[in-house]
């Protein structure tokens, strides 16, 4: 049981780790990584249940539970990290739009993030029994690389949860800036159910009208 207890102690840290994407956008008392995990697990389950083509719900929920475990050691990264100045004014300026990179920069950032997180995942599950280690590694790789329908669907649900959270924060604090968030969303999401949910968000929070920031 010692291995389990050590693992539970370590993953418990996610309850107190604020998500970096909100910290850099100066959101007060931002949600923790564990709080994000809670809602994305529910979203993945309930949305998958609504899909006409059957998906493995158990796999989706497990994927949700483990997808950010690596962040205990790797930390939470954002696309802005490599270009973020310390000066708050300059930061706000940069975050008015979605960051754009060259092909080489993109490949490097993606590869570095993946390697760092993979190493951290292996470290955090180290003391678990071998069969569980295998399962968690496979689920994480599936999510990261979109190797199955569940992996691809979950990746979109994961981003959707962040998108919804951004909208809720905006409604409450008028932060974060909506322009880059919507720009990102319109290039990223292609799963029909998620797109339907986005239109619902548009109606509920913006009444379908044009927003000026």
């Amino acid at each position, binding site marked *: 049981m010692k291995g389990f207890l050590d693992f539970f102690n370590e993953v418990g840290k996610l309850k107190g780790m604020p998500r970096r994407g909100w910290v850099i956008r100066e959101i007060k008392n931002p949600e923790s990584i564990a709080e994000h995990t809670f809602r994305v697990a529910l979203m993945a389950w309930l949305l998958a249940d609504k899909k006409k083509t059957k998906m493995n719900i158990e796999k989706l929920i497990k994927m949700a539970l483990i997808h950010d475990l690596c962040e205990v050691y790797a930390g939470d990264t954002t696309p802005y990290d490599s270009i973020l100045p310390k000066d708050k004014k300059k930061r706000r300026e940069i975050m008015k739009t979605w960051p754009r990179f060259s092909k080489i920069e993109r490949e490097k*950032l993606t590869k570095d993030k993946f390697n760092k997180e993979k190493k951290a995942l292996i470290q955090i599950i180290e003391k678990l029994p071998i069969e569980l280690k295998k399962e968690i590694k496979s689920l994480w*790789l599936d999510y990261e690389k979109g190797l199955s329908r569940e992996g691809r669907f979950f990746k979109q649900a994961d981003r959707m949860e962040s998108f919804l959270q951004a909208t809720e924060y905006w409604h409450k604090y008028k932060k974060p800036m909506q322009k880059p968030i*919507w*720009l990102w969303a*319109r*290039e990223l*999401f292609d799963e029909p159910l998620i797109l339907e949910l986005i239109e619902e968000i548009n109606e509920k929070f913006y009444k379908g*009208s*044009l927003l000026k920031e």
Partner: protein
Amino acid sequence: MEKKIYYLTEEGFKGIKKEKKVLENLRASKINGEVPKIWESEDLNPDYISFQEDMDFLESRLSEIENILKNVKMIKAPAKGSEELIDLGATVLLEIDEKDQDELMIVGTLEANPSLGKISNESPVGKSLIGHRTGDKVVVSSPVKTVYKIKKIRYQV
């Protein structure tokens, strides 16, 4: 299994075929109790180690690949006269809101990875760009308005 058409670029198709071969070799080696020769290959993706450790994962990925290959549609070079229009497989240089520039490739959902500059033909921006030509301005709005000006279109296929 889902009956969906998977659009793949030549590169994506080759990648899937190669992965299938590697996984079949891994499976055969595992069954025979051998150390797979594939590990000696220089271009081996180290992530395949998870497949070697976890046979269920390997089998499910192989079945996924078979489903993809059954429903694949190759992204072909555009017909003569259509090279000026954006379609699947096009790499498009864009000016966004008269400030930023970006180069995005339009691919099928399977290869889409916006972090790498590949966007899905089923995403709102991908859908809106298709059918347009250099010089066109494409507006994606509600609730925030974004103007994509098409600067250049090229095809690798």
